[in-house]
């Protein structure tokens, strides 16, 4: 732990990179795309390092760091004790001194043991210092359920992070966005929370959607933080969603297309900043809005999306509904968990209801 690194300039953001270049043909899993983004930035910027539980030889419980310690060694890919407050705070202090830590919180569910460092320090120091101190740090964390990991290991909680000001929050749904958003996050001079759903990583040991493997350019590039993306165009109903639910929504959209129902799917990709213009633009076409969110329904993302539309275009909506996780701890038994998750079946029913003109409850 004593090897010295060359001093890196403070807050470099490196060379300009391509923004959302053509995807090309090379296919990677989301996990591999994240690993590649981190590795490329570590090669070009000595101030970047990775820290967290089991990020070393294990390669990250959800494979976010596989292979990194082999290339960069234990002084730049660092296994920590189970001391989230201490090591996240260590990331903050290192960032204040001009390093660019990529710190992993193994599950977002664990935020409760370390949230003070995250929301009262990482997120507030830049403002409290009147812009004199920057905290260029990435906090990456695994989210989501669907494999019976119980109430303490299945939550997404992005609404909780997005509600608290001072940190950017990105939530990629696929390999291309994961690499581009991770690259942008590491190069950003602001703290960025990078929340990846276990179900989009393309892990060999978990049920996976075919879209968890996709085309990814080899060279470094950025996906802009704060820009949503229409991942399927449609005219009848707008589904605003993110992360694994994007996959389910696309599956439903494809199925219903055969019946002539045209569903537009908007992948938010970022929650902070939230691309409200893109949301309104889509709903302006369809008039019907369904928010699909694996986070708890109340006081979170789904309400914010709906309110943002109504504020900007009061008369616009002819239909609105939510397909979210109801306000219940996530049950263990599959039969119960899949009764509360935003499944394709629930999404499909919501779309049909929207076309029927009624209001989903």
């Amino acid at each position, binding site marked *: 732990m004593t090897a010295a690194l060359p001093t890196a300039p403070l807050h470099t953001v490196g060379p300009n990179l391509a923004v959302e270049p053509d995807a090309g043909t090379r296919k990677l899993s989301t996990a591999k795309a994240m690993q590649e983004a981190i590795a490329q930035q570590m090669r070009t910027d000595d101030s970047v390092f990775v820290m967290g539980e089991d990020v070393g030889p294990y390669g990250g419980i959800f494979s976010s760091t596989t292979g990194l310690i082999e290339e960069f060694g234990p002084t730049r890919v660092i296994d920590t*004790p189970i001391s989230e407050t201490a090591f996240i705070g260590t990331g903050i202090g290192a960032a204040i001194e001009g390093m660019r830590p990529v710190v992993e919180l193994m599950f977002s569910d664990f935020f*409760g043991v370390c949230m003070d460092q995250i929301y009262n320090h990482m997120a507030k120091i830049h403002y409290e210092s009147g812009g004199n101190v920057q905290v260029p740090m990435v906090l990456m964390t695994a989210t989501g359920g669907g494999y019976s990991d119980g109430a*303490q290991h299945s939550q997404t909680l992005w609404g909780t992070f997005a509600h608290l000001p001072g940190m950017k929050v990105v939530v990629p749904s696929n390999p291309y966005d994961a690499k581009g958003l991770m690259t942008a996050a590491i190069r950003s001079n602001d703290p960025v929370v990078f929340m990846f759903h276990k179900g989009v990583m393309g892990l060999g040991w978990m049920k996976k959607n075919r879209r968890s493997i996709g085309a990814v350019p080899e060279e470094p590039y950025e996906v802009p933080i704060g820009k949503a993306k229409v991942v399927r165009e449609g005219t009848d109903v707008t589904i605003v969603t993110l992360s694994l639910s994007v996959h389910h929504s696309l599956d439903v959209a494809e199925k219903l297309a055969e019946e002539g129902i045209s569903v537009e799917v908007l992948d938010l990709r970022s929650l902070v900043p939230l691309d409200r213009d893109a949301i309104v633009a889509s709903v302006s076409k369809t008039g019907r809005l369904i928010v699909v969110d694996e986070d708890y329904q109340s006081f979170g993302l789904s309400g914010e999306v709906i309110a943002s539309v109504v504020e900007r275009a009061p008369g616009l909506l002819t239909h609105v509904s939510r397909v979210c996780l109801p306000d219940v701890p996530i049950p263990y*038994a599959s*039969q119960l968990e899949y009764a509360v998750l935003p499944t394709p079946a629930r999404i499909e029913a919501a779309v049909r209801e929207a076309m029927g003109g009624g209001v989903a409850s």
Partner: protein
Amino acid sequence: MTLYPALTDDMRRGMLQTMVLIRTYEEAILREYHADKSPGFDIGAGLIPGEMHLSAGQEPVAAGLGLHLTKDDALTATHRPHHVAIAKGVRLREMTAEIFGRETGLGRGRGGHMHLFDPETHFSCSGIIAEGLPPALGQAFAFQRRGTDRVAVAVAGEGAANQGAFHESLNLAALWKLPVVFVIEDNDWGISVPRAQSTSVQSNAVRGAAYGMPGIRVEDNSVEGVYEAAGEAIARARAGDGPSLIEVHTLRLWGHFEGDAQGYRTDLDGVPGRDPLPTYRNTLTAQGVLTDSDFAAMEASASELVEDAIDFAKASPTPSPANALDYVFAEGARS
């Protein structure tokens, strides 16, 4: 003076019996867990879905503790809870049904293997590292305030001893002289992180001094060592003399969780030779306390209990999706 009964041969056989029951149980869960996850391991599939942290190799901690506890004492466990649950006397059928996610389970299938709650034996566990400790303080607080001599035991891994909750809990328990015993299971690993990479001291026992409480380390995964250390500590707690810290050097016989290839693990070769079950069996046999037929009988009764529990679980109804929202609250808004 000893504050707890000296070990008799019956008690020794009893501890071995408990160890056998635990091992038999974990082997059965291992079997059932993997039975229907292939081809291609899918963690969410099968009769037992989700993460599975088994305690094989750590039986001595449970067996040595269990002899000192009544069902009125409390115990909080971790993500690796089965061995101590069994030693605490948690109902095997209902616990197994919970692991199978059935309506007859301890939590009606809502909790799962990391969330076992048994009010009858005041047993609970949590999947968040070290966060099972504070609630044990509260149980001990209630026992103390009611003038009883009941105690609460809080179990955690060596990795958990570097979490803030550990520190806060030991300070508060010592400050208020709560009847708590903290038991650290040092199995050398926190998932893939070896103890030397997580902990700045050789033994967590030394950390007792930071709170003015006795700290003792039991070496060699010795069930009798655990019995002695726990006896002292529990008697001390019952007498109103406050908490103690015990660290047991135990063994993670299998992976951190099922599916863990353990490629990171440098000590694998030595592991089989450190299995505490044959070790203690041989000790008792050598001492003339145990015959082969005694042991065969232990295995037979253990299998019977375990298979009965598994049959019960499998025969139990799965929860109805229609009731997924039940039990969020005990009552609606009162009006």
